[in-house]
């Protein structure tokens, strides 16, 4: 049972005309994992999730959820999968509770009001149960989307940027609940723009770029690969001295980032700035984080 991967993606290719939105993705996600799918906008994360959920069909390759092919055995595959879509969609005709009962019915489940109540309580929606969807705020609609994805207690839960536009407090509520589900054995796959979120939650991470996996490892190993420390210099509108351009990890909106193993290199960098007459407005020294790892890997890939 637990030898079967929760998700197996083999040779996935998805073309939109000439664009290869997925360009040969192979990926196994084990049961019980908390897995992060990261990558810049347009990397193909949503495309992969859509193919996984049967919302779109791969041009080449196969995907199986808990061993069930998402095309051939779509009924079994879909019944063990819960997907929170990226877009904030809702059905304006119904109240929260009506919607959840209907969604459960689509999965062949009736009379699971106990679980629906538990979902509502865990997502802080209990006092909105009888409210029409139209009257909910964006954050609440987002949580209803999460509840809808969980209404059939799926083994595998996929969340496509679930915290976009959700305030900090609600994010905490949501993660506490998702973590609890993970501890109870549910496999979680998450895409997010908040890298600290992935760093805090995910056991393992795949980085996707232009439809290809450019890194796949445990969160720890990815962080270790970056190594050293990061120097962040705010130089306002000044130009980065030519010698430093090649050394910088990134330079964006007046902020230059450098990675270094030896603290003495900080002095060297500052010396170059001083000699070039660049005024450093602010300096930060950071421990490596996913953002650094991310920037570095995307850069290596480009090189």
């Amino acid at each position: 049972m637990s030898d079967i991967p929760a998700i197996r993606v083999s040779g996935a290719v998805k073309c939109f005309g000439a664009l290869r939105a997925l360009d040969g993705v192979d990926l196994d996600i084990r049961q019980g994992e908390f897995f992060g799918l990261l990558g810049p906008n347009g990397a193909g994360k949503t495309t992969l999730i859509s193919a996984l959920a049967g919302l779109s069909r791969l041009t080449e390759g196969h995907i199986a959820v808990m061993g069930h092919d998402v095309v051939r055995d779509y009924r079994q595959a879909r019944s063990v999968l819960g997907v929170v879509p990226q877009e904030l969609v809702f059905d304006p005709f119904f109240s929260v509770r009506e919607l959840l009962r209907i969604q459960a019915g689509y999965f062949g489940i009736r009379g699971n009001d106990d679980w629906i109540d538990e979902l509502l309580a865990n997502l802080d929606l209990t006092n909105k149960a009888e409210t029409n969807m139209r009257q909910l705020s964006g954050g609440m609609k987002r949580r209803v989307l999460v509840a809808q994805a969980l209404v059939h207690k799926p083994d595998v839960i996929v969340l496509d940027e679930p915290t976009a536009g959700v305030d900090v407090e609600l994010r905490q509520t949501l993660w506490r609940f998702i973590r609890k589900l993970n501890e109870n054995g549910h496999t979680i796959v998450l895409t997010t723009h908040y890298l600290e979120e992935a760093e805090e939650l995910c056991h393992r991470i795949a980085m996707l770029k232009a439809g290809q996996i450019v890194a796949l490892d445990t969160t720890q190993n990815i962080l270790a690969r970056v190594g050293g420390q990061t120097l962040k210099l705010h130089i306002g509108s000044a130009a980065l001295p030519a010698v430093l351009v090649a050394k910088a990890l990134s330079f964006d909106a007046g902020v230059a980032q450098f990675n270094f193993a030896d603290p003495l290199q900080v002095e060297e960098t500052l010396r170059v700035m001083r000699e070039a007459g660049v005024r450093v407005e602010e300096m930060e020294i950071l421990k490596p984080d996913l953002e650094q790892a991310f920037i570095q890997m995307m850069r290596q890939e480009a090189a």
Partner: protein
Amino acid sequence: MIAFRTLLYKEMLRFWKVSFQTVAAPVLTSVLYLMIFGHVLEGRVQPYPGVSYTAFLIPGLVMMSVLQNAFANSSSSLIQSKITGNIVFVLLPPISYREFFSAYVLAAVVRGIVVGLGVWLAAAFFVLTPLAHLFWVLCFATLGGAIMGALGVVAGIWAEKFDQLAAFQNFLIMPLTMLSGVFYSIHSLPPFWQSLSRLNPFFFMIDGFRYGFFGVSDINPWVSFAVVGIALILVTGFSLEMLRRGYKLRY
């Protein structure tokens, strides 16, 4: 089976929650047609011996309501779900394309018949029509509603914008229903238009339906039944194939 029943229930609840627009409004429209045409033409036209024009008109208007509302139900539900994106809620669960089709079509039939019944009851204030063969009345209402519900599925999936759906409705559905003999017996038409009417499947639906009330019609009801049945099989086959392939739904 639960999935099918839930989708059917949801589709019926959807129109029932806005029944003022989806049921009351079309009933009112038909009653206005009845009052105006009935008033103007009563006594001038007698389609069948012993059948007044107003009485003749009623089954036509009832059937037209059934057809138009069945089409409106499935097509508008689908296009709204597609445009707002909430169609994913029915695409993510393990609902087969046959269950999907049956639920949308059956809900459309129910809406059509509810509106049709409303029109008939309202019309009963003016003229009480006879009811010669209830079986044929129900049979043609159900088959006609199902054809239109299935066409609504096709149109709702094909259309990407509301104006495309409106074009489908205004340039195909409306002319075919209007020219199907709702307001007249085709025997009153010149021979050319008579034979043209016989190419319109809607004509057979309305003629057969009317037979159920008066026991007289332009065409033998079994012939109409065969034509309408074949039309239903064709439309069903077409839309099932569309759904099976995921045309415009699963890209």
